């Protein structure tokens, strides 16, 4: 005699499933007697290891991008004699690049007290090693650059010494700009040169995205700090236009199962939301002259998409079918 109680219904469901699929799945009852194989690869286990990185890493990508590209904007400002803008930009570069970024990077290490081991060797074939040296070089140029430009701006020293400071400021800021462009873009190389399918399949796009998002974010922060200049607005347009193009690239350049983490799952949504915010939406807001809104939209988008790319790595790395499919490309 059957009843309609929930427990009886559950048993009916199990019978139904067993009848239809000739196996009932669940924790601990996954294999015995079932048709084989039902999961891709070895019981659906990951073939490569997903990244172990936590929230500090995407945040570092974001702050490193802002810091590096701030130094580029500072150089342009110095050349065209916008000293106030150059000073703010160098403060931004120093705080984000010489304090925030190293702290985030060290926090993410499994053994933070051994962070100096990063500078034991110089390996040009390791993007992580190159990144550590780029960040160090950037900090070593940005901070003296900031000090020199501030001392010069306040006319602390007289005559010749002040002229020397002016020259020193120029040299350090330009050097910081060179290392800054690398600081903002190497992070794309870092995750592009790995065994994670959704990452290495987009190794060309990633440095463009991270670098341009860094430039747009630096301009956006400077605008929000009160520097309303047509030059920064132009950079905002440029970055949003490039990001819009990348959004189109990403939706056209699909690799089926190999990079489905970008187009499916929550990770795919993070990427899309991020790219819409710092691409088309920021562009439209800027066209309507809503500069602060455009700046905020771009910054949120740049931040969300960095988290999105790390999330994509976690999903893609755990997906054995993605690894098998990626080997065709």
């Amino acid at each position, binding site marked *: 005699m059957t009843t309609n109680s929930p427990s009886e219904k559950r048993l009916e469901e199990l019978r139904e499933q067993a009848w239809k699929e000739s196996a009932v799945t669940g924790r601990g009852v*996954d*294999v015995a*007697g079932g048709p084989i*194989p039902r999961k*891709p*690869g*070895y*019981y659906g*286990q*990951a*073939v*490569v*290891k*997903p*990244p*172990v990185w936590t929230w500090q890493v995407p945040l570092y990508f974001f702050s490193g991008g802002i810091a590096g590209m701030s130094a*580029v*904007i500072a*150089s*342009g*400002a110095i050349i065209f004699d*916008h000293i106030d803008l150059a000073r703010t930009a160098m403060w931004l570069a120093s705080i984000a690049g010489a304090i925030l970024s190293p702290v985030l990077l060290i926090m*993410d*290490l*499994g*053994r933070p007290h*051994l*962070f100096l081991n990063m500078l*034991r*060797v110089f*390996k040009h*074939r390791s*993007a*992580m090693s190159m*990144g*550590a040296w780029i960040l160090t070089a950037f900090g070593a140029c940005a901070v003296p650059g900031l000090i020199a430009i501030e001392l010069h701006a306040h006319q602390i020293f007289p005559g010749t010494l002040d002229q020397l400071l002016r020259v020193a400021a120029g040299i350090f800021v330009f050097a910081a700009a060179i290392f800054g*462009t690398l600081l*903002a*873009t190497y992070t*794309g*190389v870092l995750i*592009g*040169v*790995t*065994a*994670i399918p959704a990452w*290495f399949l987009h*190794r*060309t796009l*990633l*440095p463009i995205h991270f*670098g*341009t998002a860094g430039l747009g974010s630096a301009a956006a922060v400077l605008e929000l700090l009160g520097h309303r200049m*047509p*030059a*920064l607005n132009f*950079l905002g347009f440029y970055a949003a236009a490039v990001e819009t193009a990348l959004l189109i690239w990403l939706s056209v350049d699909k690799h089926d199962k190999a990079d489905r983490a970008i187009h499916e799952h929550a990770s795919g949504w993070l990427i899309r939301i991020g790219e819409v915010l710092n691409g088309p939406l920021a562009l439209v807001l800027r066209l309507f002259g809503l500069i602060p809104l455009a700046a905020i939209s771009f910054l949120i988008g740049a931040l969300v998409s960095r988290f999105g790319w790390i999330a994509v790595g976690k999903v893609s*790395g755990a997906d054995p079918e993605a*690894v098998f499919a990626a*080997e065709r490309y």
Partner: protein
Amino acid sequence: MIGEGTHSTNQRRHNYVQENVEVGFFTDPTVCIGCKACEVACKEWNEVPDDGFTWSGNSYDNTGHLGASTWRHVLFLEQDRQKGNQLVGSHSLGNGDGEDPFRWVFLSDVCKHCEEAGCLEACPTGSIVRTETGTVFVQDDVCNGCGYCVVSCPFGVIDRRPEPLPNAGGAFKCTFCYDRQKSGLVPACAKVCPTESIVFGRLDDLRARASKRVQQLKQNGYDDAQLYDPLETSVRGIHAFFLILGEPEAYGLPPKPQIPTIYLKSAWTSAFATAIASIIATLLAFAFFS
């Protein structure tokens, strides 16, 4: 071929480290009995902590996968294929013709010790090094746990050990018992293997032995026996190679593993182009919109 007793390279002392001889593991699932002695020996000798006990439901495999605290892992494959010329039972649960071909394959997985190793290239501290015998070794006191090797291994072997395990935060994987090798001893897993499914020895000897074994198996009806040793990809061969029955995917092995450094050129080109474009855009911005 098997059961060479005291003459086996698994039981002999050697001077491979002193003589800079390339060594390897040849792992043969057709003689593996799934006893997991290799897993136990590895954990005991290397004092690898236990990383939890979970009931996977995946055949007799409750180890799961290689990781920071699992350096040997016996795979248990259940496949609806015949094993060699074995007799196939017939019973009511089989397919339409009453036959139910089935095989149970055991294979002891381990770090592959690649000729071109992704983890070694990625390591920013120089913690991961190549030893005299050609194996890949992590110096634990140098590793700062950046985690870049984890995503750079095409085989998903190396991993960062999480809290609260001992020595947490560092990256760990099979050491090829470098400490034992330096003293002329054989790696613990090979030493304990009762059927010599794991054979330790000179790499060139093992490669010759392996291809002979494949031929022998094919003669005995194991049509899908093949060597898994990606010599043709950018990994350029592995020191711990395997004989497998069927496709590598079923063992969780990538059919064409690549070392990620082959992507360096295109990624850096893109980075430099972006760097130059950003500088030009900034100069244009200030030149025309000031």
